[in-house]
């Protein structure tokens, strides 16, 4: 039986720049920054929460051949590699204002939805992130696919 989900991963184009953004700007903290020789194992986490870490991985050889690495980098910059993570804050409007002031690129301002209030942003490379404040209590998903689907955007 699987008992925990400890790591997820996102491709970044530059690990120093990633550190600046995820730690310096967003306010996550470094869990591990280790030069393993063959790779730099760099993980960040919500402050005080080592139970889930985000691995900031740079694509490249020998894990990927040069052409594949280029393709990954291209997809990251097109915003086509999905969502790097959804983060929870206690005051989404305040965090939004702070991050806007720091020049973070938002794709969506805080919006109220059936699951809470959240907003969308991008990391410097093109990866999508969400920051939100979940509704208290149980969330009820609306019925049926089509009728409710539009509410997501």
């Amino acid at each position, binding site marked *: 039986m699987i008992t925990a989900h400890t790591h997820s991963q996102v491709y970044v184009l530059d690990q120093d720049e990633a550190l600046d953004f995820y730690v310096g700007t967003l306010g996550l903290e470094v869990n591990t920054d280790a030069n393993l020789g063959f790779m730099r194992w760099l993980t960040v986490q919500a402050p005080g929460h080592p139970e889930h870490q985000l691995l900031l991985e740079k694509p490249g050889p020998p894990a990927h051949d040069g052409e594949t690495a280029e393709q990954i980098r291209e997809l990251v910059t*097109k915003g086509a590699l999905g969502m790097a993570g959804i983060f929870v804050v206690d005051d989404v409007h305040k965090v939004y204002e702070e991050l806007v002031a720091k020049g973070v690129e938002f794709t969506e301002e805080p919006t109220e939805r059936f699951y809470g209030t959240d907003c969308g942003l991008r990391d410097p490379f093109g990866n999508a992130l969400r920051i939100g404040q979940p509704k208290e209590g149980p969330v009820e998903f609306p019925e049926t696919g089509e009728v409710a689907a539009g509410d997501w955007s």
Partner: protein
Amino acid sequence: MSRATEERNRFMLRARDAIDRDYAEPLDIPTLARIACVSEAHFIRTFRAVFGETPHRYLQRRRVERAMFLLRETESSVTEICFDVGFRSLGSFTRTFTEIVGEPPTTYRWRAADLRAVPACFAKAWTRPSSFGEARTAAGK
């Protein structure tokens, strides 16, 4: 290739995000090209190379998707919805909507309202966009 391509993509993504965010505004090519930091002609060509369709088409699809939502979920009139999602004439809204969805806004709304009356599994099976061509036939294409 490489760094220049990545930078190009990133600028195009910024313009595409602007479409997704500000679709209801009178977005035009000069505005979007400015966001992407390129000339207008270059912008249209590059956007298409990166995302597989022109910025105009992407904007139309975004507006139509929002209109579908409003037609289903609100009581607003078709004309109100047309302007709410950024179209500037009812004619171009109806034409574009019909071309993309396969049926006019009023028909779509009537059919979507009916959906609430049936169990979800039927709605799912019968409202799935078809690859068999009936939608186009029904719309007189």
